[in-house]
């Protein structure tokens, strides 16, 4: 057996399980970082054969499901290329992680709002004379 024939299986074994990043992106990070949400989509490829990329749509759906009443912010998205075994078995993994931010709901005051009185204050309180109000016939009191 030649040296090359020995070297190739060794290199192939070493290269198995290698992960390389191919893309990265982020969105604005919120102040509220209390609830973390994460999702991942992976496509295994035999000899690099792949017929569609629709698996990535699952990623956004998974993130949205984890934050039904809020908004996902601060999303770090990574795309990685995984080598399970050189030439034969590969995969592409897309992962995204962010924070679920719930909208701030302003609490409504309990009970009906106090109504501002439109009636002129009583003369006794202010000390001013109450103007004469005409009655239905037009005669002043």
């Amino acid at each position, binding site marked *: 057996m030649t040296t090359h024939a020995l070297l190739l299986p060794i290199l192939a074994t*070493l*290269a198995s*399980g*290698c*992960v*390389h*990043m*191919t*893309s*990265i*992106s*982020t*969105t*604005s*990070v*919120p*102040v509220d*970082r209390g609830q973390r949400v994460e999702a991942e989509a992976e496509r295994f490829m035999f000899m690099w054969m792949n017929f569609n990329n629709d698996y990535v749509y699952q990623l956004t759906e998974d993130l949205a499901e984890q934050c039904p009443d809020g908004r996902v912010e*601060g999303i*770090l998205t*990574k795309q*990685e290329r995984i080598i399970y075994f050189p030439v034969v078995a590969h995969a592409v993994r897309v992962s995204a992680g962010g924070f679920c931010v719930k909208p701030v709901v302003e609490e409504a005051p309990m009970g009906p709002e106090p109504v501002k009185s439109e009636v002129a204050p009583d003369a006794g309180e202010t000390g001013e004379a109450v103007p004469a109000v005409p009655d239905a016939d037009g005669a002043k009191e």
Partner: protein
Amino acid sequence: MNGMRWMLVMAIGGVGCTHAVHVNHTSDFQTTKALSEYRVIDARAEQHVLLGFVGDTHYANDAYLRLMNQCEGGQVTGIQTRYSTSHSFFSWTNVVEMKGYCSK
């Protein structure tokens, strides 16, 4: 044979001089005041790779965490993410650099 020697000399001589930018991404801007009132923060993480043998990409998450941790209680917006590789002899260094604006 002479050509091969030249190639080898060029390869060794060129080590450390080549850098490749793979991704340059800018996030959304969510500003509530003038950008000049924000604090500029940045973070960097590296990964040294020998002959391509590497098992994870956690260094990218590290860069992101370092950026966030510089802005506790504030919002980080307008994040520019740069992913590049600096080449060496039979090895290379992956670099993720992030720069953003902290509201606090």
